[in-house]
């Protein structure tokens, strides 16, 4: 008999425990395993051991990290990249794993395209050799990134050893202001707790402002959990989730769907469930936010100024700020809204969904960008929908390039790079040194904010350009 109220994190954990050992480590069953080109390290390990794949029916592969975003009808020009994309096809083919190829209409960034297929469902455990696997938590799934050795382990066993993390709940209560987005909630949260603030925790996002988010917004929020240090973050499923899932190719159908919803409705945290840490943000106080430094925790409202390291008593903290300011080429005390940019990027698993493209287009419509920029939709399906809605025309008329789908300029390994020393306003997830290319300087912000920066040529409060629009 159970009397203790449970959180959604507890429920998801307990429903997947195969073995619990003394000391608290558990063997968890994995419902979905997602693979990409980078997974070749893991296939090498499997081959070395000479073992079979335990459940090829539960793995799904898509090439996204290295793929070109242009001239997709032609063979891939870069031989190293062509080899990696081909290797994924061969590795998955040899083991009978479903593979969505480069020119498949379902192709896209794994964290965008897999939910589109209805493969991400509430109540599932989902892993992938990519830290932004936390994205899938938006559906009430327990989803986290793993390393190559763990990918190999999951391939060979369909399970993973984990110690149960501590539980954190972030409540965002109250309505958010027009012109702010899920990205602003996430950056505000990360800047408050720090890039390591949620390490060792799983996060449940709750509160009326989270409930009010669309699935796209929830995916952005959960995606960025890792930037606060949490391996996973999730939102309890509700009618918004079910409406989004219904009719997706791999989602349960008809009566099966209704029965699944009955089970999913029981996942929500029980009243009185305990959390190791609770944080509350006032939705009404969240404003358009940008990063100024080289860690996502170095984020501030766009009307703020660049921090001054000399005002910090702790020498290690002051050194970190000085180091970031030097890399970013900024002046302490300078206005963030005066920072001129060289280019923009709109895309990625964080903000490459249709709603993100609509938000950017609502600012760009009828305007010209002062800087060059690239729009890479999160999936081929998002690209088609954007074209149907005429968003591609808005981007092109603004002077931006509208390309194919992939990780693109977020990680800069497919050739889409920010040149050394250039400053990019970006809808992505990491402003790390060199992330978008050696010497590249990245400012993270929402799609509307990136669009506003494109129009003015400097960091700008998008609300100024949205007046009378949207």
């Amino acid at each position, binding site marked *: 008999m159970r009397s203790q109220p449970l959180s959604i994190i507890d429920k998801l954990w307990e429903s997947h425990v*195969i*073995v619990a050992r003394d*000391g608290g480590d558990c*063997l968890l*069953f994995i419902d*979905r395993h997602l693979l990409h080109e980078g997974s070749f*390290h893991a296939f*090498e390990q499997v081959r070395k*051991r000479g073992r079979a794949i335990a459940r090829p*029916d*539960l793995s*799904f592969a898509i090439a996204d990290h*290295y793929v070109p975003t242009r001239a997709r009808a032609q063979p891939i020009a870069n031989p190293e*990249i062509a080899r990696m994309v081909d290797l994924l096809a061969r590795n998955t083919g040899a083991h009978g794993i479903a593979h969505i190829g480069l020119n498949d209409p379902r192709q896209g960034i794994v964290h965008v395209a897999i939910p589109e297929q209805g*493969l991400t469902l509430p*109540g*599932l455990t989902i892993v992938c050799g*990519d*830290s932004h696997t936390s994205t899938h938590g938006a559906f009430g799934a327990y989803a986290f*990134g*793993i*390393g*190559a*050795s*763990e990918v190999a*382990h999951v391939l060979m*066993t369909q399970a993973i*050893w984990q*110690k149960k*993390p501590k539980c954190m709940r972030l409540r965002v209560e109250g309505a958010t202001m027009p012109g702010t987005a899920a990205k602003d909630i996430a950056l505000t949260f990360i800047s408050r707790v720090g*890039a*390591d603030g949620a*390490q*060792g925790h799983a996060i449940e996002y709750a509160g009326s402002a989270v409930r009010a988010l669309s699935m796209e917004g929830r995916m952005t929020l959960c995606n960025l959990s*890792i930037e606060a*240090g949490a*391996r996973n973050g999730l939102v309890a499923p509700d009618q918004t989730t079910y409406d989004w899932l219904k009719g997706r*190719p*791999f989602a*349960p*159908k*008809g009566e*099966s*769907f209704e*029965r699944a919803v009955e*089970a999913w409705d029981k996942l929500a945290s029980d009243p009185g469930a305990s959390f190791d840490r609770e944080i509350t943000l006032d939705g009404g106080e969240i404003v358009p936010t940008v990063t100024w430094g*080289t*860690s996502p925790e170095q984020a501030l409202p766009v009307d703020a100024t660049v921090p001054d390291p000399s005002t910090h008593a702790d020498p*290690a903290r002051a*050194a*970190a700020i000085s180091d970031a300011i030097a890399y970013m080429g900024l002046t302490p005390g300078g206005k963030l809204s005066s920072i001129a940019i060289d280019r923009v990027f709109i895309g990625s698993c964080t903000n490459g969904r249709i709603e993100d493209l609509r938000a950017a287009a609502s600012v760009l419509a009828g305007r010209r960008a002062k800087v060059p920029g690239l729009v890479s939709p999160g999936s081929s399906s998002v690209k088609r929908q954007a074209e149907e809605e005429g968003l591609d025309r808005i981007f092109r008329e603004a002077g931006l390039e509208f390309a194919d789908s992939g990780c693109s300029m977020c*990680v*800069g*390994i497919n050739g889409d790079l920010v040149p*050394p020393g250039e400053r990019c306003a970006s809808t992505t997830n*990491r402003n*790390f*040194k*060199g992330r978008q290319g050696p*010497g590249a300087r990245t400012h993270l912000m929402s799609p509307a904010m990136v669009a506003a920066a494109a129009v003015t040529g400097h960091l700008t409060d998008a609300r100024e350009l949205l007046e009378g629009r949207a």
Partner: protein
Amino acid sequence: MNPFTTLAARACPLPLANVDTDQLVPARFLKRSRATGYGGFLLHDLRFGADGQAKSVLPLDDPRYKGAQILVARRNFGGGSSREGAVYALADFGIRCIIAPSFGDIFSSNCVMNGLLPARVKESDAEALLAHLEQFAGAAINVDLEAQRIVCGNRVYDFSIDSFFKTKLLNGWDDVDVTLSFSEEMQAFQSRDAAERPWARPIRADRGD
């Protein structure tokens, strides 16, 4: 995997916070097979210019710290990307233990999978260790995993590590072998689960597969 019990080795200071895995190994090197060795990619863009020439101001390239097997760094070491290449770069460079106030969760897990010890210390202790290693370049540190203790100079520091990681490192356990020893439990779980969560299986109902 070789067990990790104690380590007495030269330690190198890396007085930086937020050394993310993108810095530990830039993404463009991840196309390479592990067999080619990842040691040369460690912190590549901090150590080498665009022309490939060494530009490093890091102690890592100071001859006095040559052969170091222990790194001491500031908070949030190994945050960010899940790339195990970051650990390959450290391991292939010769590093077996990293001491810092906090680590990325996935990075910690990747370390343990490869027999490296991520030892968590208080922020003030990390600063004391960094200061000592800068003053006495080339000094050795003793790390005792069982006792969770670091001896450096005439001081002793405690460190913390997840008990699960500790057991794995001390025993040099290979996860796959351990897991496969539970194959009966695995079978039982899957039969029970198929009945309890029929919706969890990926079925394309429209295609009937």
